[in-house]
């Protein structure tokens, strides 16, 4: 088999794999949409009352809102109507904002994605480096200290950690802004979206990263120690390979498979779980928007947000699967 044929076969294999993964997403999405819809439907609270002005609402206005939004219809009718709109790619309009959900998602999801990616970069660089240090000095004081700090970081509530970082780096030292996204970030042409200013990104990304960093460090350490016990590493050591080359060249790449898995899960979790950080740093992200949507019983907004996160979750996992093949050539997509 020549090289071109092999490349074509590999390409077909990846395309087929992606198609299968995306198709398998459909029943998952349907189940998630239905579950969220049911939960929001049975929750006490009337979105029409909130739309009509909260504590003081004109009964006539309330009735008109219910009729306009079809909130008087039976549950099956509302559910099927929502599914029909969704099937045609229409997420509907947000009850409270009165704007298309797709536009709200386009405004908020990139901010969350940027935050999660920045946190992931910081966490993976720091976590892997510290994991290598721990494994290299196993059972020495450095290992014990880093392991202890990792455990502390995993245990700290994000909300508290964020406030402490604000007090230290913004209020006391004055190095970084307290909160916000920044007004001067570069606007992405053709979209209404603008990037955050770097100085505004650092603290929220660090807050999120510190939480993940501990877990990545521990997984890297454990995995690396496992690989270091392999016969090929012992052979390399016997041949006189330096400890640095042994850890970084011979062992680390093979130890990365579980680390990549954790990174993938962490990134997907950060996308949906950055809400506390978004809240502390006034970050205009999707997590905060979904939480508001739940409080306001804004069903289209919550559904749209959850579908968006679901898609992101699956795509990240697909990317992780693809990364396996890069990290370890023995892994094949099936």
């Amino acid at each position, binding site marked *: 088999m020549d090289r071109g044929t092999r490349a074509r076969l590999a390409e077909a294999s990846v395309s087929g794999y992606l198609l299968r993964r995306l198709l398998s997403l459909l029943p998952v999405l349907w189940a998630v949409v239905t579950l969220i819809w049911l939960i929001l439907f049975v929750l006490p609270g009337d979105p029409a009352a909130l739309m009509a002005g909260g504590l003081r609402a004109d009964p006539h206005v309330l009735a008109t809102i219910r009729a306009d939004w079809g909130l008087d219809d039976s549950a099956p009718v509302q559910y099927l109507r929502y599914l029909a709109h969704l099937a045609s790619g229409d997420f509907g309009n947000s009850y409270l904002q*009165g704007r298309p959900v797709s536009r709200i998602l386009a405004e908020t999801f990139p901010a969350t994605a940027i935050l999660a990616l920045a946190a992931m970069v910081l966490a993976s660089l720091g976590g892997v480096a510290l994991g290598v240090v721990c494994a290299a000095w196993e059972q020495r004081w450095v290992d014990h200290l880093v392991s202890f700090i990792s455990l502390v970081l995993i245990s700290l509530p994000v909300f508290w950690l964020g406030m402490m970082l604000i007090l230290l780096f913004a209020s006391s030292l004055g190095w970084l802004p307290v909160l916000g996204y920044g007004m001067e970030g570069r606007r992405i042409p053709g979209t209404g979206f603008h990037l955050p200013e770097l100085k505004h990104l650092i603290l929220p990304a660090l807050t999120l990263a510190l939480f993940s960093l501990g877990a990545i460090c521990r997984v890297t350490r454990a995995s690396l120690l496992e690989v270091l016990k392999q016969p090929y590493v012992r052979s390399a050591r016997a041949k006189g390979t330096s400890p640095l080359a042994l850890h970084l060249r011979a062992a680390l790449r093979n130890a990365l498979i579980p680390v990549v898995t954790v990174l993938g899960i962490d990134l997907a979790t950060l996308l949906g779980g950055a809400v506390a950080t978004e809240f502390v740093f006034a970050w205009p992200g999707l997590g905060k928007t979904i939480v508001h949507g739940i409080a306001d019983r804004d069903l289209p907004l919550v559904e749209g947000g959850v579908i968006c996160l679901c898609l992101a979750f699956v795509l990240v996992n697909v990317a992780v699967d693809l990364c396996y093949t890069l990290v370890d050539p023995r892994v094949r997509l099936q």
Partner: protein
Amino acid sequence: MILFRRSLAFWALASLLLVAVACSSGEPPKPAVEQVLRMRMRENPPDTDPAQSADTLSDRINLAIHDGLVDFDPRSVELIPAVAESWDISHDGLQFTFHLRPGVHFHNHRVLTSADVVYSFTRILDPKVNSKRREILADIKGAETFTRGKSSSVQGLEALDAGTIRITLERPLAYFLQLLGTPAAAIVPREVYEDPQKGFLSHPVGCGPFKLSRWERSQFMELEAFGDYYGGRPKLSRILVRFIENPASAMEEYRHGGLEYMDEMVGSESTIAREMPQDYRKAPFLGTFYFGFNLARLPFKGNVELRKAFNYAVDRQALCEQVFEGTLSPSRGILTPGTPGYNPELKGYSYDPGRARESLVKAGYPGGKGLPVLDLWVNNNQKLLEAAQKVQADLKAVGIPVRVKAADFATFLQALQGTPEAPGEALFYRYGWNADYPDPDAFLYWLLHSRNAGPAGNIGRYSNPKVDALLDRARSLVRMEERIPLYREAERIAVEEDAVWLFLADYTQRVLIKPYVKGVVLSPLGAIRIPLERLWIEAPAPASQKPR
């Protein structure tokens, strides 16, 4: 050579003069202060359409962008001219003729005319718009038939010429002018607000002192001084409204110098007041805080002695001092100090556990025996929960069993409101009411009249024909001195005879404003009425306080 010497002498003299001038002026000239006010708001304003403005966030923004025919003086809350420079009222109080100020421009630079006033008011009554604030114009002649779709225009709205408009009412309404000062009664340009795509929701256009220049959702809203504002260009060149949900983070930002104005405080207010005495401002506010009874259900239905027992059992003074650190003051009735018609002689209820026990006996529940455990509904808020726990302890001391039930706002709302026909499930709940306009009617009509039973305001479903008649009569009179005795009598009946709810406290407003922001006036109608167009920044901000 001589020329050279003369020239040298000239330059030496000039240099000396320059040095002298510099020395005589003391410090080098200060750079002009950047006139930017950065204020915190919890989140985006939900409704930038004034016709739908029904919450403080929306009202704050709408008051900056829009103006109505009249306005309130922020200090005295008396009516002052706005878009209308003057008005005449007919002897029977039915016709109001407004003379518009010449040269009022919208932000799109079009001149405002009486046709815009007719359009704006018709829009509020339009059934298709379904305005949350329709009630402010509901008494205009022909409003009802128009809203029901039986006529194509509102009979009582007439543009006499480009600068004059006449409004005719169905019946006299003493506070009609006050209603026109509420944020919903803003004048808007037809060409912008007829957009079926509702572009005005993201780019509102008004004739107010500030125009929207940029809105990044959930980040900030930038308002720019409107150069053609009829009241003169505002001193502030721009206002940056920053959306910061977490009050703890916002407090840090305020301390750090990233905000000039904060509307919510975290932690002990007395500590904050000590820490920042020049920033902390407190002022009266036309609002009342109480725990309501569901009068349509047992055990409160028809049992006035039980309701009085609750009122005697609670120590309001201790509640205000211990829970609210003196920021709220105990109330004796419904109307708050500063409201026209406020009755300082109303007795109300003093803290008297002995009388509470006596009332319980008369109510048929001696020592609280036979009373079910009552859920006290509170929406999730730390201070409200603490207040509920204090009231729970006081009631328990006389034998009334109460369980605090905290819920998110949507659940809380549903439990309270019910429908106009059926009461909600909550029997005992926290409630509060702010006046939209400075008139006793703003409290008493909405909270007590049986016509408003349910979501319209009378959540407790109080119904007393005598009180209804007094309120109806007071609404129809024009002269305040004739109206006030009627309102006072209605309030006395509701408080002293019927004990309609558990009276607790009068609200105050507290804000943090940097001392270098000048021209601040806290209106009794709330911090949303701080006249932004009159503010200016006095001192140059230190380096760390430059607008970001």
